[in-house]
């Protein structure tokens, strides 16, 4: 179900956040500027806290450019969600974009990446112990 990621009086931003079990799936549709990024971060953190999410997938398949600003923002975002107890996986980096990122000399540090949404969910299950379907199976 799509959750409103806009507050009163603010323009809509190009991100949708969906909740699936104890995971949040955020799809970025277009490049975000500073302001949009800030609001996206706040909204994501708010939802992680509200739903006690344990995993976040950020889908960037729609982005055709990832510059150092964009990568840094994603990395910061992943670190921030980690502090809230949720693991972030970034999925959907396009081959050309991946190539440009390494040519530019950027990396995402120890942030996990996966090919697509499906793989991202499998990885989150793996890392959180199947949190998607049964949030209590943590003690495995």
């Amino acid at each position, binding site marked *: 179900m799509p959750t409103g990621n806009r507050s009163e009086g603010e323009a809509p931003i190009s991100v949708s956040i969906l909740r699936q079990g104890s995971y949040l799936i955020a799809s970025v549709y277009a490049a975000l500027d500073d302001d949009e990024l800030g609001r996206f971060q706040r909204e994501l953190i708010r939802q992680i806290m509200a739903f006690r999410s344990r995993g976040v997938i950020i889908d960037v398949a729609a982005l055709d450019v990832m510059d150092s600003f964009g990568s840094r923002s994603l990395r910061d975002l992943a670190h921030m969600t980690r502090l809230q107890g949720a693991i972030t996986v970034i999925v959907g980096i396009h081959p050309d974009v*991946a190539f440009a990122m390494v040519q530019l000399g950027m990396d995402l540090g120890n942030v996990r990446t996966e090919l697509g949404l499906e793989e991202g969910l*499998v990885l989150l299950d*793996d890392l959180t112990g199947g949190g998607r379907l049964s949030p209590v199976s943590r003690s495995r």
Partner: protein
Amino acid sequence: MESPAEQDASTDHEQLLPELVAHLRSSRTQLRQEWANRITGASLLSSMTPQEIFSEATSVYDNYVEVLETGSVEALQHYAQNLSERIIPRGVETHEVVGIVLLLRDVLARSLFEKYHSDFALLNRILDAYEPAANRIANTVSVSFVQERERVIRQQQDSIRELSTPVLQVRERLLILPIIGVLDAQRARQLTEQLLSGIRAHRAKVVVVDITGVPDVDVSVANHLVQTVDASRLMGAGVIITGLSSKIAQTLVRIGVDLSKVNTVGDLQGGIEEAERLLGFTVRRAADADRQQE
């Protein structure tokens, strides 16, 4: 240069070239026919039909006169490149192209001679103005042709390269990229692009890059290998490098590549086993998780 001063010579050319151009324009039909005949007579462009030769001869002739008129060869360059693109696949050789341009130069020179032979001084001045321009045209056409030929050869090399670096899918989610032969920067780049799009197309989790067949790498290629590993990782695929010779390993270490970040296994067989272990590990964990749900 026999003329008293260079300045005078160039003034002379400025005045004579328009006359020259006018003559070549008015004798267009006759001269280009003669030229086409001489091309056929000399068995040049034998792979083309007389109609084709006549049509190209017309274009070259008009371009030729234009260059004499404007002094700019850029347009001729464009045309020559275009012409070369069309005739190279048909097996036209460099000597044929040089041959036809020189024939045109001679056909025109002869016609100038016929027109002006009564006034020997004028003829000399006309030829002085004509020759440098004509040589420049011949040079332009030949150079364009040779450049285009080189480009075609490069293109063929590229397609051979493409064939020699196949991305193989061994099993679901596992790709193998056996690299054989010398890696230069261009080939390394191409390889990376192929691998990355292969990862996406086959939804690969693990890639085994086997470089047993690579004799040596230089610094830029080594860096490229590392970048390939990083880019694959960004797409969610792990890379295992096999067949790393001690020589290449030394190069990597010398340029400061942290080999601990790169997963290396001795030979291809070992690499595939390691890959299957990685894949199986994921599968087993998922299966465990499912069982737990029931």
